[in-house]
């Protein structure tokens, strides 16, 4: 096997305005390292889009940022605390200020939409039921689902399920909101509605938002900054505007939607099949 690519950005001290600062982050599944020393910062109140193809490590990065995966080394500073090394109780407290909207929505099918949104409030606060009921209606209104609190998730369309999941992610008034492929599997009009909602949330609540996506149109619409991941390393970290002008070959390939070249030569092909020396594309 070839050695993994070396990280291309050196660690820096978190900036004072950084809501999230990731330094030298490495994540392994067993012996296989997926993220090879990631460094980036998300300024408070900005939307960071993590772009990358399948297998680039972007979903692993997001799962690690929200604490669903443990880093093998490195630091994740969120709201001034090293999320990876603080005690569990402190991490749980920090997590309450983080909202996560999963790719499939992850609503509980046996509960109504309202009960799904109420759940984090019932679990983590001492609020009265009547207060929670009002909050649920407020959250559903914010995502355009007023009046749907008594519906079951199965009765909702794909876009509505995403909105309901976003309402649940908003329940605890998070300072940081994470989205995993928010427009995946949605038709373009519904996907545009989700983009619009993300923009509204950022503007309205000055939330720091991290979005993992491979949808380019959506990414450029919602992002202040973008990082492009390729094979577990960051190949670009820039403003959305600058990234469009990037000449970095892997970034251009991704943005211009150029397919991977076919393997040429019998030796390459044989090596790929036998796993001796997997061909490295540039």
């Amino acid at each position, binding site marked *: 096997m070839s050695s993994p690519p070396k990280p291309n950005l050196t660690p820096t001290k978190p900036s004072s305005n950084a809501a999230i600062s990731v330094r030298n982050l490495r994540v392994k599944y067993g012996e296989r390292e997926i993220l090879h020393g990631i460094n980036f910062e998300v300024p408070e109140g900005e939307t960071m889009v993590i772009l990358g193809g399948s297998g680039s490590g972007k979903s692993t990065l997001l799962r690690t940022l929200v604490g669903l995966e443990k880093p093998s080394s490195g630091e994740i500073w969120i709201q001034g605390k090293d999320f990876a090394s603080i005690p569990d109780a402190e991490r749980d407290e920090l997590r309450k200020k983080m909202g996560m909207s999963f790719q499939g929505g992850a609503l509980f099918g046996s509960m109504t939409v309202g009960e799904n949104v109420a759940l984090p*409030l019932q679990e983590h606060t001492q609020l*009265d039921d009547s*207060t929670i009921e009002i*909050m649920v209606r407020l959250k559903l209104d914010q995502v355009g689902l007023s009046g749907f609190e008594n519906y079951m998730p199965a009765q909702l369309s794909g876009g509505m399920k995403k909105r309901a999941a976003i309402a649940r992610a908003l329940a605890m008034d998070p300072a940081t909101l994470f989205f995993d492929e928010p427009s995946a599997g949605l038709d373009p009009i519904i996907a545009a509605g989700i983009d619009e909602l993300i923009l509204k949330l950022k503007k*309205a609540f000055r939330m720091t938002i991290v979005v993992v996506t491979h949808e380019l149109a959506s990414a450029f619409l919602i992002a202040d900054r973008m990082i492009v991941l390729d094979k577990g390393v960051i190949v670009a970290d820039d403003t959305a505007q600058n990234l469009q002008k990037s000449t970095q070959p892997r970034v251009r390939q991704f943005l211009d939607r150029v397919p991977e070249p076919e393997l040429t030569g019998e030796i390459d092909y044989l090596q790929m099949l036998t796993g001796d020396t997997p061909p490295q594309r540039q």
Partner: protein
Amino acid sequence: MDISTRQSGTATIVDIVGDITLYNSPQVRKVLLDLLKDKKSPRVIVNLEKVRYIDSAGVASLVEGLKVSRDMKSTFAMFGLSRTAREVLELTRLIKVFEVYDNEADALRGGSTNVAPAR
């Protein structure tokens, strides 16, 4: 967050100092419902001059206060909203639902609603 009440004529003024959040909003709710339901105060005015931020649990508590005041046929007002607090009420489309004043004197006088500029 600190919360206290004082009387001004027939109105009860609720002075709140500090942010109203998920964790302390039950305290606000309790004071408001106690004044409106138990003490049957005819007019409750919430002083938000020293409140920088209200989260959605805080907003929900104020909504409950308003609802109970209507049930009890009393009135419910607030004054001294910070820019952030005002924005939160605008975003939740509640700014026009509440009786909002610029300052205490206006709130005590009553009459004109939702005319207060952001502080």
